[in-house]
């Protein structure tokens, strides 16, 4: 076995010049295609951030329709007025649905006591305000939580522990534009936002200016970041925490009812089919189509140009790699014939060639991804796009897809040479 591995490695290190060409072609292809992908993703993000509702592509926002009733008496029916766990399970069963991200409001009085004296020592302000709290799924806000430590705290929150809280930027804007000036309070700037991360506040669950529920709880909230992903005038807390407080103070399945949810679907076609189905059940459905047609066209055209450039780079790389691998393989026909005459099977010879190019491709693709991870920020700094930020979104699926493609391209490029070798070249002594 060791000797066969030795022969395989000998093959890997043969024809180093051509191997280096293939290796660098893969690095350049992966880096360029990946960089264009990042530009495309960042552009889409920018469009959604600036021009669209907060609904990302291939997501559907589902909200219960307002319950019918008279005044304070509301009639709850199973006609889309309640978004419950049972309905979520029903939605999950639809074809094309990948994941559901539900949001739950805390349906009890909530008040916060914020000590601003640490930020503004001269002012000595302690600010108390009634609030609304919304529990959000980790999957939707994880990129807004500052640091892995806070992400862990969010994911593993248990009653009794400090409560991680996110502040939506819309809430901050509302404070800055009306509350701060009206009450003579300092505005919270971008720099101050950074300083506020990790700050503590007291949060009273079950107590507000209007009502106090017996047994109300005083928790320590810890600010873990700011978010654009939940456009609510509410404090954002872990979904599990919202369930806990609703269950504790409200009971009656209130820990299983949601204010809205995002359905993540597999593709654009699923957006249509799933939306239609959920609409029929009586829910209010919103999709990314709330973008204006002009903006959609602009986005689609830019995406098309980016995709075309990616294909051009990919195509040129494949041609360069294919020529290199075919020439390299056919140049070694005499060596492979000697191996075969000495008892190596065709399968073994083919295997060593495939392993050689798979290894070169894998190394090149990994290095290409590494360069993307480390160079994009530097490129963004040099390029200085106005109002447009290059965002490196670390997606394990994308990384795996790129590395797999980088590995397979040189392998598939060798197929013509392998076929020629297998059916002709190796059949003579």
């Amino acid at each position: 076995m060791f000797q066969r591995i030795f022969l395989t490695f000998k093959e890997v290190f043969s024809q180093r010049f051509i191997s280096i060409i293939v290796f660098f072609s893969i690095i350049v292809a992966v880096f360029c295609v990946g960089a264009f992908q990042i530009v495309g993703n960042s552009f889409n993000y920018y469009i959604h951030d600036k021009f669209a509702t907060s609904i990302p592509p291939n997501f559907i926002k589902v909200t219960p329709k307002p319950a019918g009733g008279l005044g304070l008496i509301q009639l709850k029916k199973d006609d889309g007025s309640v978004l419950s766990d049972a309905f979520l399970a029903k939605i999950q069963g639809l074809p094309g649905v990948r994941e559901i991200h539900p949001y739950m409001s805390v349906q009890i009085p909530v008040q916060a006591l914020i000590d601003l004296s640490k930020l503004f020592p001269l002012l000595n302000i302690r600010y108390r305000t009634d609030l609304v709290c919304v529990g959000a799924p980790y999957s939707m806000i994880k990129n807004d939580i500052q640091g892995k430590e806070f992400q862990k705290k969010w994911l593993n929150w248990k009653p009794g522990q400090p409560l991680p809280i996110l502040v939506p930027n819309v809430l901050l804007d509302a404070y800055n534009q009306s509350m701060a000036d009206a009450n003579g309070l300092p505005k919270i700037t971008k720099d101050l936002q950074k300083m506020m991360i990790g700050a503590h506040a007291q949060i009273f669950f079950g107590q507000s200016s209007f009502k106090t529920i017996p047994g109300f709880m005083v928790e320590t909230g810890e600010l873990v970041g700011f978010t654009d992903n939940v456009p609510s005038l509410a404090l954002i807390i872990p979904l599990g925490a919202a369930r806990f407080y609703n269950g504790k103070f409200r009971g009656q399945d209130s820990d299983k009812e949601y204010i809205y949810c995002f359905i993540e679907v597999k593709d654009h076609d699923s957006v249509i089919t799933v939306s239609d189905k959920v609409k029929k059940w009586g829910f209010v459905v919103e999709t990314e189509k709330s973008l204006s047609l002009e903006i959609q066209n602009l986005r689609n055209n830019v995406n098309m140009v980016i995709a075309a450039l990616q294909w051009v780079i990919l195509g040129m790389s494949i041609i360069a790699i294919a020529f290199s691998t075919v020439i390299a393989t056919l140049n070694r026909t005499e060596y492979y014939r000697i191996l075969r005459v000495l008892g190596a099977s065709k399968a073994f010879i083919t295997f060593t060639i495939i392993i050689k190019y798979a290894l070169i491709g894998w190394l090149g693709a990994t290095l290409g991804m590494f360069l993307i991870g480390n160079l994009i920020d530097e490129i963004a700094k040099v390029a200085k796009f106005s109002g447009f930020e290059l965002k490196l979104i670390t997606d394990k699926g994308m990384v795996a897809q790129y590395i797999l493609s980088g590995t397979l391209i040189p392998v598939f490029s060798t197929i013509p040479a392998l076929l020629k070798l297998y059916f002709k070249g190796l059949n003579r002594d």
Partner: protein
Amino acid sequence: MLKLEGVDKVYKIAGKTKQILQRVDLDLKEGEIAAVTGKSGCGKTTMLNIIAGLTPPSHGKLYFMGKRIVYFLDLMPSWIRNRKIGFIFQTFKLINEETVASNILLPARIRGHAGKNERMRMDSLLERLGIAEYKNMRAGLLSGGQKQRVAIARALINNPPLILADEPTANLDKATSLEIFHILETLAVDEKKAILIVTHKDYMLQRAERVFDMIDGKLIPIPKDDLIGYFDRMMTPIVRMGEKSGETTPHPGKPVKVAGHSGKKAGHSAEKGEE
């Protein structure tokens, strides 16, 4: 040890079928040297390739040590070729960029065993073939005779019972050719190896235990005691004119004249080209 029964080989060339071998029968025993001669393109190398499992026969059966060779997926022939057959070529087929030792150990590496025992066997073969001093030299730097010795050592590293030699001395001078043939003879006698040799050299045909002539894909046995007469009868009138330059056997004591069988004009001449 090796048995061929009614082996045919048909190639399709440019849409036309060409029969290379026609009902070839052969039975080779342990320790026996058999020689095959014949015109270029008559099918000698094809026959060796079929025996080595490099190409399957179109029809017929092939038995090796009593077992029928199955060509499915190339696995059984490769296994046999690696462990049971040593192949020696006119063009040596060494990897010139690698050392002598690396070349010799290659079949052992393919087998998956190139440890202490194989290295000891290699050293002993190098000693025996008189090329021990070149062990760490690149094969490309050796002379033709030295290269053929390396090729023989490589063919013997896995200790195969059958040696196939395809014009092993065609590229060598007479003295070196003699030495190489002597090595092969010794192998047959000392180690009981069966040797099937394709050659045009008269002294080899003389010393082989059995001789075959391949004519248009048919393997025709030649009686040893009528070797000279057989080739005499096979000669064309034009070839007869070149008789004067006839050749004698190189071994002392028993001069043999094989009129017209050697020399470039002869039909069964020592041509260097492969079939």
